């Protein structure tokens, strides 16, 4: 059927689905919202600057208003006082939107395993692409953005219905192994005790 129509129309008309057309457009014009709180933010700036030139991949239009953006790049550690701000900015962004967690601190808390630092933003908000590194090189951020573009082109829909399926929290549970370790330490167990297994 499609080939018959193609034969009749020749190269004058291009047939595709609305989903694919919308995703193609979205993937190649991502507008990042830089949520830069630490040294990853310097790498993010370097990525956008002339040497690495993020505009080669269609996502150089950094906007500091969440209303104008569709890609949040969380670059740096997020402390417990900042997390409500981060969540609020995320909720202010219009659909469709994606989130990149850039660097060890945003992904897992990094070396900052203290009372004030959130141990990975994915515990409290959805994340699409994780970029490891401390801080990641600009090339790694570009790779992450290319991966996100592939993800959008593969699974994107015009009315963003793929997001409606993600009804469960995607990060680790709020209380997990490191919290168990903390509770055990409070109850008098010590890590240097050879009989003490911190995980089990």
């Amino acid at each position, binding site marked *: 059927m499609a080939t018959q129509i193609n034969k009749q129309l020749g190269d004058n008309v291009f047939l595709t689905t609305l989903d694919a057309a919308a995703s193609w457009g979205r993937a190649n014009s991502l507008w990042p919202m830089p949520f830069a709180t630490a040294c990853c933010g310097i790498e993010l700036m370097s990525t956008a600057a002339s040497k690495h030139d993020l505009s080669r991949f269609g996502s150089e239009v950094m906007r500091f208003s969440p209303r104008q953006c569709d890609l949040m790049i969380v670059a740096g550690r997020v402390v*417990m006082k900042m997390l409500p701000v981060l*969540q609020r900015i995320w909720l202010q962004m219009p659909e469709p*939107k994606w989130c990149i967690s850039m660097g060890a601190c945003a992904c897992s808390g990094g070396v900052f395993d203290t*009372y004030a630092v959130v141990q990975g933003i994915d515990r*409290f908000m*959805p994340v699409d692409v994780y970029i490891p590194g401390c801080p990641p090189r600009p090339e790694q951020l570009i790779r992450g953005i290319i991966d996100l573009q592939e993800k959008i082109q593969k699974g994107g829909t015009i009315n963003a219905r793929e997001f409606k399926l993600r009804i469960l929290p995607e990060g680790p549970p*709020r209380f997990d192994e490191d919290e168990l370790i*903390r509770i055990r330490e409070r109850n008098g167990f010590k890590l240097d005790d050879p009989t003490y297994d911190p995980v089990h």
Partner: protein
Amino acid sequence: MTIETPKPSSVEIDEVKLKLADALAGVALEWSEFRDQYRVVFPATELLKCLNAFKSAGFEQLSDLTAVDLLEYSNATDRFEIVYCLLNVDTGLRMIAKTYLNEPDLTIPSATSVWSGADWLEREVYDMYGILFSGHPNFKRLLLPQEFQSFPMRKDYPVKGRGERHNFPVITRAES
């Protein structure tokens, strides 16, 4: 024109000691010295009188105000140490003034009436150690959220906290 050679700091601190002995007659001051750092321990009961005397003796600037939790110090007799780092801006002489404080009454008079720069420093000390400064003009937490319950720089507070960093709602993708 002659250039006045600065006096060695040991001479200056001797003058300060004489002045303070005059102004604070009857108050037990305990002096010590370590590598040109001069320290004085004064009783917390005479706090404002002592601080005013320090300022009159030339220490116009409070360069820092902080506290130390001595909980795990084996030879410590008191729980908290309040540290006032003072600077004479004319001569450059520095002096560390300390006082000790114990539970359950962790209230001392605020130094804001002497040095207004003590405002944020005292709020930070309250934030981290839970020491109350009476007479402070705007007494509340400086760095941590107002609803925070603990005082994290105390030695009996676990490094990883008491679950504060996990006490947030989870936003799923479908909800946002």
